[in-house]
């Protein structure tokens, strides 16, 4: 797995993680997210367009990044209400273009319920 980082400027600064290859380990993704987070960037777009396969380790990494960034959300109360209603979506971590298999994994694990999945790159950046 290869991770390339780039920076985009929308309404906020967004760090784009372009992942290439199968995600079968949380190692790498978690460390990179922590580095970016510690550098003061709290919005990440995970570009999964070149990820053929994602295992449960990938789900663990997503959960780690989600939890790391969630601390910066404005209202935890609103988050809780949104989760209960099934309408909550993370404002800090979003996904871009997962393939059919990865989408299936995300849906089976319910991750698509709290992580937005985008197919248009510009719209994805603008959505933050």
């Amino acid at each position, binding site marked *: 797995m290869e991770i390339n980082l780039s920076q985009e400027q929308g309404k906020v600064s967004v760090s784009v993680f372009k992942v290439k290859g199968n995600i079968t380990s949380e190692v790498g993704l978690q460390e990179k997210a922590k580095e970016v987070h510690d550098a003061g960037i709290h919005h990440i777009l995970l570009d999964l367009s070149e990820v053929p396969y994602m295992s449960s380790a990938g789900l663990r990494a997503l959960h780690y990044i989600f939890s790391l960034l969630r601390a910066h959300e404005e209202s935890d109360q609103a988050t809780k209400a949104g*989760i*209960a209603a099934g309408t909550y979506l993370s404002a800090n971590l979003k996904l871009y273009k997962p393939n059919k298999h990865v989408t299936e994994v995300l849906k089976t*694990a*319910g991750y698509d*319920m709290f992580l937005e999945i985008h197919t248009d790159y510009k719209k994805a950046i603008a959505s933050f």
Partner: protein
Amino acid sequence: MLPEIIRRVPLFATLPQVELDALASNLREYSYPAQTVLFEEGETGDRFYIVVEGEIAIIKAMGTGNKRLISIRGSGEFVGEMSLLNRDGLRTASAIVHTDSKTLEMSRAEFDELLHRRPTLAFEMLRVLSARLSEAHDKTIRDLMEKNRKLAEAYENLQAAQEQIIQKELMERELSHAHEIQQNMLPRKLPRLEGYDLGAVMIPARSVGGDLYDIIPLNEDKVGIVIGDVSGKGVPAALFMALTQSLIRAVAHADLSPDEVLNRVNRHLFEMNAGGMFVTVLYGVLCKKSREFTYVRAAHEYPLVWNQDRKLIRLPEDRGLPLGLFPSPVLQTQTLKMTSGCTMVLFTDGVTEARDEADNFFGMEQLEASVPDCVDNTAQGLCHFLVQKVTDFHGEAPQDDDITLVVVKTT
């Protein structure tokens, strides 16, 4: 030339000219290339050597593991005198030519005659021998101190290694107890249900695992069936697994719907979950009379169901979040009619994500293709068959994740 060389030898420095001339006419000069053995320790000595040019090494215990260099004698020094002075006449060390050398050699008889004529020579020799003795003594003490230091160091290393072994054994014993406790948390014997055949197996990847399964009799008509997988591995996952399994056992009740049970379990897990762990769970209630399996899927893999014609039934999509992450996760209830002759397989991702040596996954397709081959077997037989399939697949590659299967067959 030879008298000049002899005069430069400190041992003969005090001899008069006439004696030096006598020595010059009697002593024989020899040349030796490096590595020549002049004499060996233990043999009888009949001469001693004065080094004219080059270097000669004096070695104790040559050819043994305790070989030790005593000193290197250079120009003007002498070697081999000890055997001429000792009563038994034996060499006390070996002498090897260190660099190409020239020596003058004096026989025992010549040496005795010279000492007899010039007893003062004995004092010169005594001075040299005394200095050599002192040097050898200091070297022995230095060697002993170095050996002692190495011994002390080796002893410390040995103690540290022993401590590590003790700690490792202790940890292995504790993990073995933990494994036993975890295995005892699983149902020892699956309940017998008329009209159904149940089977289950869990193979942890390490001593303790993060997978769980349970079959909980709720009343005469209903049985709760659980399978789950905690995120992560090792002891933290095992503790979270034990917590989840205990909570489900405590909360599960015939009057509570599966989503109510998992919501209650989730509330406890969420409150006690500072470490940010989560667990995927499938919990369902099997009703004997109605032959319905009502379940909720908290982000766990979908059940795989084959009808009596060995055809895989496509189940409706549903939504479900893992437990432990959110205060009130979305969970959707599904009901499945368990018709006669159907086979339901619940599994954890340790089955589908088992990897072979080339890093290929066992995968859902292979799991789905394997079951019809063995669908006539008992539920427990099918569990073992699938475990064998996965084990054969990963071969020499290590088992990455816990493998858990629960099979329900209707008769």
